């Protein structure tokens, strides 16, 4: 092959949710949880390496690097896959994430049938997703809903209902914020302050996490 091949990066996150069992993580031995997560990581990596079997339509590419991470919570596990490849890294990462989450579901389905998969999304090529922490908020968070064009200040007094209060200012290289199914584009207002402008009609609750997304294709 002639020329230089450009490596691109893509990411995907998703959740395995069980709403009906309290203390599942606390009551499961840590060694068992570690084994479950290692199994899911193994399965995701295997799927990335054998991606053409599950997705024969994928264009030929070389995968340079991949990383599978988990965050365990009381009622859900977040699975995060990052892939560097010469083509379609976001799709390959999403494929790995689907297998990771399905493996987790297989491991937890004996505990509760009410386990399910939710909120799988992916970043654009060469860009990334960053989960950010939110300032202290009421226990159940702040619910917001918006129509296209609605604006929200990004760092304000969190006692104001409907506000978005972030722990840190938004790094300039990020340009989208996802809260629930509400997508907010980060723009400057006439005073030069960063604001979040809704790009869809959606809603979400700011609890302890939100996703900053860089480089969503328009």
């Amino acid at each position, binding site marked *: 092959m002639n020329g230089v091949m450009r490596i691109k990066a893509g990411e995907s996150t998703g959740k395995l949710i069980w709403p009906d069992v309290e203390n599942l993580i606390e009551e499961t031995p840590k060694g068992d949880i570690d084994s479950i997560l290692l199994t899911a990581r193994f399965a995701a990596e295997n*799927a990335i390496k054998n991606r053409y079997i*599950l997705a024969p339509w994928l264009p030929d590419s070389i995968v340079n690097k991949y990383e599978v991470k988990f965050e365990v919570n009381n009622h859900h596990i977040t699975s995060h896959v990052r892939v560097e490849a010469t083509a379609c890294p976001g799709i390959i990462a999403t494929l790995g994430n689907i297998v990771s989450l399905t493996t987790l579901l297989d491991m937890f*389905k004996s505990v509760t049938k009410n386990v399910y998969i939710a909120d799988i999304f992916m970043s654009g090529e060469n860009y990334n997703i960053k989960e950010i922490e939110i300032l202290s908020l009421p226990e159940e968070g702040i*619910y917001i809903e918006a129509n296209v064009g609605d604006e929200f200040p990004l760092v304000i007094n969190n006692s104001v209902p409907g506000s978005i209060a972030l722990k840190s200012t938004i790094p300039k290289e990020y340009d989208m914020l996802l809260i629930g199914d509400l997508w907010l584009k980060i723009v400057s207002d006439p005073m030069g302050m960063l604001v979040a402008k809704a790009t869809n009609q959606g809603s979400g609750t700011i609890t302890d996490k939100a996703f900053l997304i860089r480089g969503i294709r328009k």
Partner: protein
Amino acid sequence: MKPTHIKNGLPHMVDVTDKNVTSRKAIVLTEVIHTGNAIKHVKESLVKASLSSTIATKLLPQFIPMTHPIPFTYIGSDSTDISQDRCFVTTQVRANWYTGMEVEGYLGSLIYALTFAANQDKSFYHFIIKRSMLVHKSGGKSGTLSRHLGKILSIKTSVNTDQKYIKIKKLDPLFISNYPPLAEKDNSYPLLVTDADLYYAKGYIEVGPHFMTITYREIDESGHFLLMLTPRCDMAVVRVNHTVVSLLTEE
């Protein structure tokens, strides 16, 4: 209850030698949304999605390590209610076998959704797989389980501020119609349910981004279910087009 795939801290297959062969079925529903409102009904992407989903379901034991190979008698995925901003994928798998096959349904449905999204020109990065959940399971020791999805039709607040209601209509998950236009914004809450099926949601139901805990319920004079929610749900501002999901329960 412990994860049965872990023994002495290590992953292992569950021994199903002594189980009986029964006729089994699993149906998984996956909701895909597009934040740019630009889903296209492209025949090629639907064909690729159907083929990839079927192949992935057949080959699942190669990818999900502790599952059993299953001789399927039927695998079928279909997309319904394709609109500009969302579509639903329903995957059904059937077999006469020793083990359940909900994991196979999940992978088939998710691969269908991924293939459908990835083959939509350049708009892949606007797609979110919002949820993928088992809606029906039959056969085997656990019997028949079903999960009901519903749609919030209207929202009203009681004169008594402690009593807040949402009116919900249950829909067959296989025949979900397009969402209605948004009602006016409203702060709403506990539930006036027009269908008895959510009665079975004894612990939680999901409304939009929230889990609501049901702590009290009664039947009003009209035969509607009044579901009282815990104070934590006071944050749950609910829109008319939110999907309501009940727990998977015995039929």
